[in-house]
């Protein structure tokens, strides 16, 4: 098999996922949070594709495509929300958007 071992891909995927997760946790700007989410999704995607190649099974790639579609949809909704929040002159700060408090 050509190229680096699957482990490397997985390590990269975990790294991407970790950066993304950290970003989601620590950043307050919703745009950056969305960006970080994309990183997490792509980390997951990378792992899927890596496994797909490792096991020579196409299902993982199909999953990867599905995740991309989901990611695109999510960005649409998320950006829409960000625009809507902005238009209402609310602070772009996820900690202050706590209307759903129980």
């Amino acid at each position, binding site marked *: 098999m050509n190229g680096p071992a699957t482990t490397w891909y997985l390590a990269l995927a975990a790294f991407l996922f970790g950066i993304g*997760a950290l970003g*989601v*946790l620590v950043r307050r700007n919703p745009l950056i*949070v969305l960006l970080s989410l994309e990183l997490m999704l792509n980390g997951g995607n990378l792992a899927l594709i890596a496994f797909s190649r490792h096991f020579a099974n196409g299902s993982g790639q199909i999953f990867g495509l599905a995740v991309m579609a989901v990611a695109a949809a999510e960005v649409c909704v998320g950006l829409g929300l960000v625009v809507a929040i902005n238009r209402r002159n609310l602070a772009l700060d*996820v*900690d202050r*958007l*706590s*209307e*759903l*408090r*129980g």
Partner: protein
Amino acid sequence: MTYGSWICLLSPFVAAVLIMFGGTNLSRRVAAWIATTGVFVAFGGAIWAFLGVHAQPGQVGEYTRAWTWLQSGSFSVNLELLVDPLSTVMMLIVAGVGGLIVLYSIGYMDGDPEERRYFAYIAFFVFSMLMLVEGGNLLMLLVGWGLVGLSSYLLIGFWHEKPSAIQAAKKAFVMNAFGDATMALALFILIFHTQSLSFGALSAPLSGSTANWIALGLLGGAAAKSAQIPLHTWLPDAMEGPTPVSALIHAATMVTAGVYLIARTHAIFEQARTIELIAAGIGALTLLVAGFIALVQTDIKRVIAYSTMSQIGYMFLAVGVGGYANGMFHLMTHAFFKALLFMTAGLAIHALAGEQDIRNMRGLGKVMPFTKWCFLAGALALVGIPPFSGFFSKDPIIASTLNIGWYGYVFYACGLIGAFLTGLYTFRLWFLVFPGEPSPFVREHYHDHHGREGAWTMLVPVGVLAVLATVGGWIQWAPHWEPFTKWLEPVAPTLAAAVPTSTQETVTSILTVLVGAAGIALAWAIYAEKRVEIPAMPAAQRLLENKFYFDELYDRIFYAPAAAIANSLRTEIEEPVILQGGTDLGQTALDAGGAVRRIQTGVLRTYVFFLAAGAAVLVLAFLIAK
């Protein structure tokens, strides 16, 4: 003849429905005449049925079935009528006397703001009563039985703004519901053993205790409906209703239904001879107790009401010893003379603007001679003075007790004492109300109706009944001339033990008339001539005025405990345990929700943190498990 029975049953029903739906579109007069016509048409139907039975001597009866009323599995009960000698006699009495009384009501109720409702009710009552007597099986009988109770409730409480009337109506209904319940239990036993509720099922051989229980249940119903001890306390209170109602329901027809019931179901009572004798004993006891209480009552209707109880006691005595025809015959003559007494009392009450206290009525005969003579006819019939009707019907009852054993002599003595009391209380009433100069009260309050003592609709029925009370007994003079007994022979043959010898009959007749006359004489001495003082016995007086404390007793042992139990169930169990328990449960759930709610901060960061932490824990758990 079966058409006759259906016409008889349905015409009062149709009248009641017409009046109800007519509502205010009908004038009061029209409503009254619809009811009257309906009941007289029923009388026509009764005559048709009677002639039909008469034309076929020896036949025991004919059933007609309309449809299957109730069915379940192999058990079924038809809506069916029975035309036989017993039911035709009752139909004639109910529709005949009923028609006269409804006619009388036209005058009596004139001007009442809810006259239409009255006539709808009374037509409905006649329908129910006919259902009772024509019903071709025990369930149809029970249906009529319950419906007469309902219409009695409606009519006693007719003046519904009077709390006493409503109380009396409720009391009557509840006591009768108790009777209905015991009857229903008797029917359950019968269904259990025979899978049937036909009258024929009563002749099926049953074990002794089964027959006893069935008979006891039926007796409970009969005693409640006929106001016999211990279920009698509703009847005097029922006098709160309009007087024609008292005449029709609480004298002539409904209250005598118990007697009809025992005659109709005599097959089971003969299997349960003990219970039948208990019925006789109840009758004997009631006739004495009611006779005593009647001595001290001051309300004219209540005196007659106690007299009714007492006379029904005689009928129970008669059917209890096995003389069904005697009981039915007394039922018939009693319907005539007691309806008459109530209606003459009604004339007096009507003319005196609603006054019912006999102490205010002295000398009424001067201004109301027709009422006076009619009342006298009724009173003599009640006491049993020949040739009035009561003489022919009461004496055979007393005589029939002589051959049944030692208790027969006790019954005999009770019957004679009762006859004495009847003379005394009836003529106490007579001497207090009619003879002499009119009292100031009578002078002040008496008002006539266009120069007469009442409207013609009131006077005509009174006159007819006065004639019937006089001559109505002539159709039978035991033991010489007994067509009535013969007529009932196919359905309710008199037991051999209840047939006295002709010596016994003659001696009893003489004795009964003598003690009755003695009662009259004593009443005359006390109340007219004032020669004899009423012996001062305050204790006895109080006991009688309080009607032997039955009401208080029942209040103490039934109503009060039931109310107390219900109240304590409410305050001890329902409210603190069930309702509060539910509330606490709900509160706990809400509190738990409130506690958990705090986790929901609304800050995205916390959610993500928990998510990540949860995932981490899961991963760790997997690793460790491996």
